[in-house]
Each structure stands twice: as structure tokens, then as C-alpha cells.
């Protein structure tokens, strides 16, 4: 949706930085971040519950995971946002994405980008995360298909490979 409906509510002028690209935008004061991101084409960010319970709208804000349905866009002015699209570098999947791919950790996959971002953040702060660390981190990312076991396998394999000192790509 690209219609400009900003005349109805006060507008914030702000700098939105997503995946390393800065945009100076006008955004309705009360617009949720998930809405702004989807309007900009970041469709890996998806709304499913609207109340911060399901994790499908997960983004990284300055490296921390957040539900973009619970943030107003103007609240993240000046922050560095990362979406799943931003984890892909020069066409190559990130290690976490590659692990999900290799372990078939996807079914309908509506939740997967959020899962990947959460695992990515978890492993950045806990490089040798245990299964229980990962479960705790992912407890706010719901998957109705029940892909959780494959996701845990993917993360476990990635951590094991990294711990073994291998150069994982």
C-alpha cells in the first residue's frame, strides 16, 4: 500500500534506517513500524496477531529483537533496523539462514524470518547458546505448523559447527 494518507494525523519527519539504507521519510505519528516496513516492501515482516504475541513481525532494532507491531515507526528514528532481507549479503544467505535451509526448518514459513532474526540475535549475544537458551529466546516466536524441532536442530548444528572452530558459511 503506497497511498499517502498522512494528512489525517500528525506527521513525523524522520530517518528510518533499514538494512544499512537510510531513508528520510514522513510517517503518520501513530503508524506501527510493521506497517511502515511493509509499505516500504519489507514483506518478510508480517503481522499476525497485532499484539506482540506471535513474533512474525520480529525485527532487530540496534541488534535487539523487537515486535514491530508494538513499536511506532517514529520511535525507531535513528536506530539501525535489520529485517530478514538484510541478513542476505551479496546474494548469500547468512549462516543462520543457511542452517534453516539445510535443516529444512520451514513449513508454511510465515514465521520463519522472525525465527531467523531471533536466532541471529541469540547467537550474537550467546555464541555457544545451549538448547535451553535457544528455546527461551524463541518462546516469543510462534509456529503453528510446529517446525520447532527442525529449527532447534538447525541452531544446534550451527552452534556445534562454530564451537568446533570450523569456518561455517
Amino acid at each position, binding site marked *: *500500500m503506497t*497511498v499517502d*494518507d498522512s*494528512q*489525517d494525523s500528525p506527521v513525523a519527519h524522520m530517518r528510518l534506517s533499514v538494512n544499512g539504507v537510510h531513508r528520510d521519510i514522513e510517517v*503518520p505519528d501513530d503508524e506501527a513500524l510493521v506497517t511502515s516496513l511493509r509499505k516500504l516492501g519489507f*514483506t*518478510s*515482516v*508480517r503481522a*499476525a*496477531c*497485532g*499484539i506482540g*504475541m*506471535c513474533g*512474525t513481525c520480529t525485527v532487530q532494532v540496534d541488534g535487539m529483537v523487537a515486535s514491530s507491531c508494538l513499536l511506532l515507526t517514529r520511535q525507531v528514528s535513528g536506530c539501525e533496523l535489520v*529485517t*530478514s*532481507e538484510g*541478513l*542476505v549479503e551479496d546474494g548469500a*544467505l547468512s549462516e543462520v*539462514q543457511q542452517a*534453516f*535451509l539445510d535443516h*529444512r*526448518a*520451514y*513449513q*508454511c*514459513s*510465515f*514465521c*520463519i*524470518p522472525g525465527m*531467523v532474526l531471533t536466532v541471529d540475535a541469540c547467537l550474537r549475544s550467546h555464541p555457544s547458546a545451549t538448547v535451553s537458551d535457544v*528455546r*527461551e529466546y*524463541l*518462546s*516469543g*516466536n*510462534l*509456529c*503453528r*505448523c*510446529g*517446525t*520447532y*524441532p*527442525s*529449527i*532447534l536442530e538447525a541452531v544446534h548444528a550451527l552452534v556445534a559447527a562454530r564451537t568446533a572452530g570450523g569456518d561455517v558459511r
Partner: protein
Amino acid sequence: MTSINMTPQPTGAVGVDHPMQDAVDRVVGSIRFTIDHEVGGMAHARVIRSPFPHARLTGIDVKGALALPGVLAVLTGEDIVGDERIPNPCFGVARRDQWPLAVGKVRYAGDPVALVVADTERHADAAAIAVRVDYDELPYVVDAAEAAREGAPVIHEEWPRNECGSWALHHGDVEEGFAQADRIVESVYTSPSANPVPLEPHVAVAQWNDQLLQVWSSTQWPSIVRRELAHMFGLAEHLVEVRTYPLGGGFGAKGQVKIEPLVASAARIVGVPVRLELDRDEVFLTVAKHPATIRVKSGVKRDGTFVARDMELVYAAGAYAVTSPSGTGNALVRAPGPYRIPNIRITSQAYYTNTVPGGSFRGAFTNQVAFAYESHVDEIASELGMDPMMLRMKNLLRDGDTYATGEAMHDVHFEELVVNVAEGIGWDEAQPPMAPGRLRAKGLAVILKSTPTPSRSEARVEIGGDGHVTVYSSAVDMGQGASSTLAQLAAEFLGVRYADVRVVDPDTSTTPFDTMTAGSRTTFSSGSAIRQACAALIEAIGELGADQLGLSPAELAHDEGHVVAAMDGSHRRSYGEVIVAAGLSSLSREGVFQSESGGAFKDPLDVKGMASIHWHQGAAAVEIEVDIETGRVIVLRCHGASWAGRIVNPTRVRQQNEGNIIFGIGPALFEQLEMESGQVINPNMSDYMIPSILDVPEHMTSTALVSSEADAELHGVGEMTIPAVAPAIANAVFRATGVRIRDLPLTAERVLRGLRSVEGKDR
């Protein structure tokens, strides 16, 4: 006819763990869902819903809303009924009893009453608040048993007793059976309403071009949506194009016909493309698992032999029929469970209620009966002092046994399944010491499920001049990987590489008819259609190739997408080259799978005969722990198993078996649509929780049992372990605590109450 040497050698596409074809898009998030679909100039819609369960509509004031910025129209039921371009505004797959927007009265709290169409979602939301609706409240009924009573509020005038499905089955002589019994065991089991909660909500976009209607919808039933829309607008079916993207989950929620009639009507009346995406609370108000009350009375011999069974199944249909009239029939034929019971009487009924319309829910019309009959088997075991597994082994159906429908059962694997799941959790292992305040035990359950019968799947398979293969099928990929599974099958049947096959998304203007993507039928049904199409294609290519190479068809063989001389492999020519040499751009053939009609359902009050083209079979065993302070049930271990016959993709089969277990833990332990004053009071993902990664048993495993025959029949595995989860847990809770819970879900509160009442009795 295809001679033996014309059949391509298998390429090994089947049984291989190929990734889904769009795996990278799924992981990165670049996969497109219907929520991402936009068309130029589209408007956005917002539904105004009734807060009352049953009320007369006395006035809708749209003036205030119409005056707001960006509002294009505010529609009511009268606008749709009064539009001559919509000659048949009612829709429904079993009964056309549902209006896109309520006319005259509302039948449940959540019934759509008006629709705002505006240039933006923001404007539509703002205007929706400004629509004023006056209601005159009517007496309402939310409980099926009450709806069945004389004098209950009538929900549809055409159905004065609120009847919405009525079936009966008599097998053997029940009275005589009970007379032979040493013991009679009788109990009542209930399952509440629940929601399938696909993460992608219902969403549809409709666009009209003069007489052509194009609809993009997140639906599991594109062919039936087309049929209903064509009927509604009085159009030939080829003037309605229904397209789907892969779904962000379905689980039954997107079965039948849901928001498409409303969106298509709005686009017709307003004259612009219209998009509607439901909010989460609206998903909860659009489809519900049928609440059920199931009475089971059994007569058994002292040695455990089942001799008689009497069952009454009563379902709340909700405000509109959807599939309740036929679904109750499916419930009936599944209700005896996988047992040899010589004398059976069952009735199955649904009644209209002023609640969210009943619909499909992963394991539909099986979960409720399975919870009842599998809890019941353990109650009998307890009564007789027998091991519940041994009691099952004594009575489970074996090959050649007669089922309650009178049909002889074949390809039966229930005993294997029970042994498999029992071993999977160490049924006979000694109990490790329990933590203080915890009680631990194991439980199991085994189920059968009919597959929708009759049903039809068509497919067209095309080979291009470049040798690439395109499969046209209206089977919907909703995360189960249908497209990739069907691609693996097509690759196998044609003897080509998996990477060279593409299965397109459903588009009814090009993909042929398919009854539904539901009931775990797609791999078998669409797979059968594809197999037929591929065989015809191979034959056609063989004829062309033989002609081109100057050989007789018998002298020709097929080898990995090429025709060759059978004798020495010479004259090698690719399928693409054969097609081009024949002056064609591509070559395609169609296949049709049409199952036999389910003869069992001819007389609803005397169900007898073939009820399912084949029977799905599954089982689950759990080890649980109960926290006696709080009543909380923790599933420590679970092993699920299903009969697959033959596996197309091992990972996806495992993900179905284990995904079903995880899904099943929700309605077993906590999922329930809560009602108060006829309203759903928890229509959000905070008050209605679904299983998270923390609910996954620490030890979870599964098995797909396969045939030793290379060409065994494929069995769908989309729902085989879910119905067994709740009774397996309930049975384990009983074995741990002595508390028998007959009402789902097994919340901590219910278990704690049970523990207290057991303690009370002990004192």
C-alpha cells in the same frame, strides 16, 4: 496401452529428502503470500460485526461513515440483495444459508453486518467506527443440546428444529450385545470450540473486468470458491478466476468458502478492486472447531473383548451450516475407532447454534470422537484391571475384519502402530524416581480417519520444447509442501529430474478442478491424477518418438527424459527434442482421480457400506508429569506414528507427524474458545494461546510406517497423530493421578480440581 518397456525407470525422486522448490524464498521471506498481493487502484475494506449472538437488524446508519475522508462506500446486506448483478447472494457448500452481510437478522456475535470500502486501510478503520447499527435482541442459544430442545430459539426459519446434520448407524444387534456383556462402562466426553489459528489471516482481493471476476484468496478450496462465486453472480465458471499463493498456514481455517463472496460483492458494487484482510479477532470469529458432547456406552466381556457399543455424538454447528451436515456423517463413521465391535449403534447430530460457524480444524470430526473413544478404552481397562495397551491389542481391527460400516478392512496396521508408539516412549520401562510433588505416567491412543469420499482431483502435466515439466494442479501448498511433493511424484512418474519440474500455484483459469486441499488427501488424490497424466504423456511421447526414430513403439525405451532404442540405447533423443521435432511447442496430458462414491452415506439414517477409499491410521504415546501443587501437566516424551504406505519426502512426513503432535498439545492442554453472554471473550493470541517452543516435549520422536511393497499406496499423513494426542495425555494423567478428565482441555485448574476430589475420596 503403455507396455512395460515404455515405463520410465524411477529417478529416485520419490523417497528423497529434496528441499521445497521455493525453500530459499521461504527462509529469507521473499516468498509471496496473498497478504502481499496488490492490484492497481485497489480499495480496502473493513467489516462491521454484530456484538449480539442473535438479533434483528432494525437500522444501519451509514451517513456518518460515508462523510469521512477516503470512504468510497458503506455496504449492508440490503445493498447486496438488491443488486441485480448478484442474483444468488447466499453461499455455502452444504447449504446456501449464509449471506455475505447479514440480512434481516444476525445469527452470531461476529456475524458481518456492514462493510466499509475506503481508499486506505486507515480510512476504512476510521469509518468502521462511525457506522451505527441498531439491533433488537432475540433469545439466543449457544449449546447444541439446548438448541435441539422444543421451543429453542430458531436460527434459520427453514430449519425449525435447528437441525444441521443427522446420521445413524446400526451394526449387529446392540441389545443382544449388551446382554452378553459382563461389564457395562458409560461416560460422556466433551471437546470445546477452538480455532485453527493459521498465522496468515484470511485475506482476499477481488477485481472485476466487465464480466470477468478475478479473485486472489488465501483459500484451501479454490475450485469450490470458484463454483460458489459463479453461482452467486450467475456466471459461467470460466468467467471466475480464483488464484492462490502458498498459504501461511491453513489447518482447515481456510476451507470451504469464507470471505470471498463478500469481497467479490463489494468489488462488484463499488466498481473498484477490493482487498480485505481479517484482523486476528476476526479470524477467531470466522471459523471454529465444532464443540462436541459424546456419550459412549460399552459392553465388554470379563477378558476384555468388546461386544457392544452405543454412542451419541452431538455437535454445535454454529450459525451457518458450512460442512456440518456432511461432517457429522464423517464423524459417525470414524466414531467406533479402530476396533472390532460386533454390535454398534451410533447417532451423530449437529444443531445450529448462535456461535461462530463450525468448520474444519486439523483432524476435523476425528479429534472429538477420538478423545472420547480412546479415553473410554482406558476407562474399560481400568474397570477390568487390564493393561490399556493389552486391551487394545485384543480388540484392534486386523486385516480382513469387518468394520462398523460393514466394510471389510484392508491394509490395516493398528497393532503395529500401537507397538511402535509404545516402544517409542519405553512403555514397559521401569519408572525412574519422581521428583517430589510430581506424578508421572505414560498413556497412548490409536485412531483411524476416513479420507473425504467421494472426491476428485484433476491434473495436467506439460512438457515444454525445452524439456522442462510444468504440473497444473489446484492443490494448495499451505506449508505441507504439496507443490514440492507433487513435483517429486511427477519427476518420478516421468523419469526426469526433480529440478526440472515445476508445480504452479492454483489458478482456476489454468489449473484443473480439485475438490479441496483437506482431509490429508492431496498426496494420494492429486498424486494419482498426476500419475495418470504422466503415463499418458509418456505414451504420447513414445508414439511421437518411435515415429521420428523409425522404430515401433515396442522397440522404444525411456531413459531419464529421453527416448532411446530399447535394444542398444542408441537413437537417444530428449523429450523436448521429440516435441520440437513434432512441430509442437509443448505436449500435455490430463489425469483425473475420481474416487468411488462413498456408498455408506446414501441413507443418512442407515449408514452402511464403503465410507472411505482408504483409512488413515495413526497413534501417539506420551509420558507426562503432573505437578500436584498446581495441576499443571508437562509432556515429557511423545512418540507419534502414522501409516504412510510409501514416503515421498521423509522430512516432510516427519514434520507432519511431529507438527501434528505439537499442534495437538494445544487443544489437549489449553486451547479453548471462551464464551460469555454469547460472545467469544478471548479472540486474541494472548488470551488464546497456541503451543510455543516451550510446549514441545523434550523428547519427541515419530515414525512413518511403510509397506514392504515398492509400489504401495500413498497415504496422506497430514492429520494422523493429532487426534491421538489429547486422549493419550488424558490417559496418562489418569494413570499418574487417578483423575479421569473427560472434558478438554486438560487445564491445570481442571487437573487440580480432580486431584482435590480424589484426595477427598481417599479421606
